[in-house]
């Protein structure tokens, strides 16, 4: 699966987009100003950049996402696993488990996800 690269700041923008979509671009710019501190120009620049990469689209001043939150999260996770854990899932789980106290239920849930 090849999800396009989304930068941290763009991800924060996407969080807003997923929450409000479909949304009028001017309205979106207003929300971005309040929540991200972005200027109108910046918001529109980012919308255009994300459209170019196929992450979002802006049609008739209505902005929608083309990729789901989960897809991007998975893509980011893949990238982090590749970078930090040399692509090893066990290494990642081990590090994750060491850092966080997991309840038995959570462990079961994780195992279920892995086996799926």
């Amino acid at each position, binding site marked *: 699966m090849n999800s396009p690269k989304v930068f*941290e*700041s763009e991800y924060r923008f996407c969080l807003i987009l997923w929450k409000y979509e479909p949304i009028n671009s001017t309205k979106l710019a207003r929300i971005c100003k309040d929540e991200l*501190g*972005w200027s109108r*120009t*910046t918001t529109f620049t980012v919308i255009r950049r994300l459209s170019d990469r196929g992450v979002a689209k802006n049609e008739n001043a209505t902005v929608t996402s083309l990729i789901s939150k989960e897809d991007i999260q998975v893509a980011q996770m893949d990238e982090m696993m590749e970078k930090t854990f040399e692509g090893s899932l066990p290494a990642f789980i081990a590090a994750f488990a060491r850092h966080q106290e997991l309840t038995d239920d959570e462990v079961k849930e994780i195992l279920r996800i892995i086996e799926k």
Partner: protein
Amino acid sequence: MGSLFLKLVNLSITASWLVLAVLLIRLVFRKAPKWIRCFLWGLVALRLICPISIESAFSLIPSAEPLPQDILYTEAPEVHSGIGVIDTIVNPVLSSTLSPEPGASANPAQIWLFVLAWIWAAGAAAMLLYEQISYLLLKRRVATATLLRENIKQSENINSPFVLGLFRPVIYLPYRVADEELTYVIAHEKAHIRRKDHWWKPIGFILLAIYWFHPLFWVAYVLLCRDIEAACDEKVIREMGTEDRRAYSAALLHCSVRHRVIAACPLAFGEVGVKARIKDVMNYKKPALGIVLLAVAATIVAAICLLTVPKKDINKQQEIVVSTNSRETIQNGADALYSGIPTELIQPDTGAANGASLSSMGYTETIHPYGGQTVGGSHGGHHSENHHDSSHHNGSHH
């Protein structure tokens, strides 16, 4: 623009004495609190900005106007640096190269000044442009930075934290700053804003852009940047214990490891000399009151003695007129041979000048204020031969 340039050169020369004093005070009072250093740089800035000079009897500045404004029009251009040796060496060269040639349409001093003034203007414009462009580029780079809280934003396009903006300063941080370091990093940048460093640094750079021709101010700017960081660190750690300081140092180090991008920007607060700063942070002790008082006293003395210029004496001014006149006769007349002025008129003056030249090393204002200059006059004979030659040359053109 010529006279503006001349004014700036004069200001830069008088201010460079103050810079030297600041360098000395920095060296002597290494243990004094760092804000004193920033204050000293403020005095230098004041000297460079303020076009009028306050006169005082305590001034240690050798000359209020080393390059007189009339250098353009006088027939015998010369400097009054207030230091006999310099005048003695420079003035004969000046008068032999820059004296107006009879028959030539423009005065060489004017041409030189014109050329130099334009070079200066181009350099200053280039530096200000560089500042503007790097500011705009940096601003564009952090356009997508997202709000963390209040005036703190995070961006993936930067590697080290800094403050940007004059009226509404914003702290920019990289996303990947560990939580335990975040507090310290923010404390540091907030201290910058409270200290108004986001104003001081651009002011420093603008002054550097204006006085770029003077190497001493480059030294001063680099040291100013360092002192600002050191003073800011000091402000943050003043009330901290050793543990906190260790953590603060670690944060400093981490932020500087990935640092590279910001170095090109003169405005933002990049990291300067991290090793020295960490040393300072870890070794910080509250400065002893005695040292603080001494450093403050030294600062006040420096301000009184080097921020002011020597009193202009009316007698002295008259002397300038007199000596310029006599120089005129020497030059115009090539030892009075051509102008027909009796040699006796000139001889006594030259004699006095030679007498003064003996004491020019131990020169004090009371002996003969323009001793050096009149020594130049004694070379006038030699010079006027050149002069004579060149007028011959001119003659052949006619």
